């Protein structure tokens, strides 16, 4: 599918800053970073979680590929990868050819692949399914996300979780506290008179309704975020990148982590995985973007004392139907693989590979409840109590080194 990406549209249309493209990288020195880290910096090795959401429903079977399974080749002949094309993980499963960096992480035992992850009574709606993954509430819709509830349970400092991009995803919204957000492009600090006024506008007023109170809370959080991040990120160039550029998002995360910003969770995303038609080339290109952005980031993190505490979670709202449709694509499915990567991760497979023949109405059966993944991350990476965040806490899988 020759989809024109939002970024390409914006570049073609001159929406992104042209001058910034040639301005050159404005390097921030080590001393500046250390000087600007917040008063309670993250200690070296303190665990940090990066949540990477793949929007659109990534086709898990063409990501972690059962290349020897005749049912795989039989049900999607046009879409299937030949055994020689895939990057072998063992004698049954291999990675999509675009995921060379993931394969290297696997070799170095820093990539965990949880197979067949899903939730009870799978829903084929993108929106409901993504909502379920982000709120961790499969039974009924709720207004808070799983990271938002962790924020609620552990204080009121908004910088503990940061979303890259100005539009907050549901996972980042709590009942009392909401994650901070950073613009991925160039940041210009506000003039002093304006920031002083902003502090005034953040005060509650007796006439406020619930919506006014939300606005005021955002103003107060903005002041805190500015105090924490402005110096760390000053001089950052826009580089013509929108918030949909994963490399740019992870670049900001890397700067913050290295500077010791006391943020425990970063949320980043990559969009475009809804491949009902002409899937193979589109998905492979997207997985290539994911692979280069993530492996570059993790290589950078592995060289840094604080970066070695970073664990990345990669998930999508569902996998896709086993059998291809006739548009060389796949329709909405169910279970899919979840990735965990980074120095703290104990590499290897977790969960069983779903059968391609024992199906639920054409869909894979899930073997692992997604809350098993979240629970272990809340416990071992965030140091929180999973019972305060999740309605059901399955046994941990053990993908984080003790």
């Amino acid at each position, binding site marked *: 599918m020759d989809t024109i990406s939002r970024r390409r549209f914006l570049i073609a249309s001159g929406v992104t800053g042209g001058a910034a493209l040639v301005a050159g990288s404005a390097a921030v020195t080590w001393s500046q970073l250390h000087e600007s880290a917040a008063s309670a910096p993250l200690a070296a090795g303190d665990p940090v979680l990066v949540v990477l959401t793949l929007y659109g429903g990534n086709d898990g079977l063409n990501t972690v590929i059962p290349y020897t399974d005749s049912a795989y080749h039989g049900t999607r002949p046009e879409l299937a990868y030949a055994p020689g094309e895939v990057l072998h993980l063992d004698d049954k499963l291999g990675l999509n050819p675009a995921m060379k960096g993931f394969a290297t992480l696997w070799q170095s035992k820093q990539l965990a692949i949880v197979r067949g992850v899903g939730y009870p009574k799978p829903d084929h*709606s993108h929106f409901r399914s993504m909502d379920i993954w982000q709120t961790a509430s499969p039974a009924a819709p709720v207004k808070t996300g799983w990271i938002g509830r962790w924020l609620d349970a552990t204080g009121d400092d908004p910088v503990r979780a940061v979303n890259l991009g100005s539009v907050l995803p549901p996972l980042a919204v709590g009942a009392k506290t909401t994650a901070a957000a950073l613009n991925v492009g160039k940041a210009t600090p506000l003039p002093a008179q304006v920031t002083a006024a902003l502090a005034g506008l953040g005060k509650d007023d007796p006439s406020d309704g619930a919506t006014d109170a939300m606005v005021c809370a955002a103003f107060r959080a903005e002041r805190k975020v500015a105090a924490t991040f402005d110096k760390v990120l000053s001089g950052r160039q826009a580089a013509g990148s929108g918030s949909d550029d994963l490399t740019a998002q992870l670049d900001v995360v890397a700067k913050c982590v290295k500077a010791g910003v006391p943020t425990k969770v970063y949320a980043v995303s990559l969009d475009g995985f809804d491949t009902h038609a002409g899937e193979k080339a589109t998905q492979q290109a997207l997985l290539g973007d994911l692979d280069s952005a993530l492996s570059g980031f993790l290589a950078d993190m592995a060289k840094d004392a604080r970066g070695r505490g970073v664990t990345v979670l990669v998930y999508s709202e569902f996998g896709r139907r086993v059998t291809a449709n006739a548009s060389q694509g796949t329709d909405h499915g169910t279970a899919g693989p979840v990735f965990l990567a980074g120095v703290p991760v104990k590499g290897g497979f977790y969960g069983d590979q779903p059968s391609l023949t024992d199906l639920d109405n054409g869909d894979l059966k899930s073997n692992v409840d997604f809350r098993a993944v979240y629970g272990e991350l809340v416990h071992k990476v965030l140091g929180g109590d999973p019972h305060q965040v999740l309605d059901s806490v399955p046994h941990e899988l053990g993908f984080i080194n003790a």
Partner: protein
Amino acid sequence: MPSQWESAARLVRRTGFGATGAQVDAAVQMGTAHYVSSMLAADPGADRGAKATPMPRFPAINYGDKGAARDKTAKKALNKQRGEQLKAMTAWWLRRMIAVEQPFGEKLTFCWHNHFATSAKKVKDPGLMLGQNTKLRTLGRGDFHTLAYGMLTDAAMLRWLDGQQNTSKAPNENLAREFMELFTLGHGDAYTEADVREGARALTGWRANLDGTTAFRANLHDNGSKTVLGVTGNLDAASFCNAALAVPGAARYLATRMWGQLVSDTPPSAAVLDRLVSAYAAKRDVSAMLAAMFTAPEFDAAHGSIVVTPVEWLVGVVRALRVPVKTDGDAIQLIRVLMGLGQIPFYPPSVAGWPSGQAWLSTAAVDLRLQTATALASAGDLSALDGSAPSRVDAVAHLLGIGSWSARSSAVLRAAASDPKRLVALAVNTPEYLTN
């Protein structure tokens, strides 16, 4: 009890993009009931501002033979041409929203765009996007069946939700599912997975032509018997549409979604919903439903119940301050702001449309809005604030169609009153202006 002026201001702001004191004064003088009926009766195309910003027409891009290999340079040139057209298309709608005298026509079109959310990111063809935009504008206030069927067979929609690929031999479920889940019935118990699969069969056979029209190809249609939502027969797109709209909850779903866009993040009470549904009635009259919505006592009861979206905010500020936006280049500057805030017309993030409420209130958005407001205040017409500094706090409320400031905002604005530009930049960032 809100004052008459405050009530009128709320109505004008919710049915437009921001407001000005002069507009609110006019609505008060007219009486809000008359304001609503004349707004609903007006032809959006007859508006003087609309006439001054005619929809662009683009020469078709010649992609040549599909099978023929095209060289890289030619492909690049075509992509560039397409990029330019998409830019001009987006700039045009923004300029139209800014230029219209009565903004309701464009506001409602934007609401329908969010309801039947279709993105140029996948459709890629500005001609198809503008064709859909015209349908949303012209069909958006009549009977909902015509609009819904128009969307089901719309060229941009077919391309967006893979209707193009949906054939008797290979049904593609995308359009059938989203039509029920998002456009007509809502997610839940109203339909089953079997309805989705059978619905896809009913929709087979529609194709978009290169000129933006669509055609039904009988040879691609599945002529077998299907059962959708309890209706059985050789169903096609029209009977699928009928079956969906005949589901008892369909009217409630539509009323709730429009309420969510125009009035409040909190769903309407059962009593209000009953009133909206009975106005809509068997004729599926959208205008009657909207009139009932705008004149309901509950419409006026809760102040600040909805977070203003980035497009409403930006277009509202530009309109109130009469910031000159003469060219596409000017509009591109504004699109850059909307990109940062996460809401570009013609580019909704998914078929569910844009998020709402809390999603627009991130700390990053706070910064962007303040920086933007500072720039717009410098470019705008602040002559309404020519009076003495103490009078400016009330004057800026009138300029922006705000009924009254809270004690909190009043204190902040009084401190900034010596500098009209800063005063305006802050006023459009108060909780009063960011909610409605």
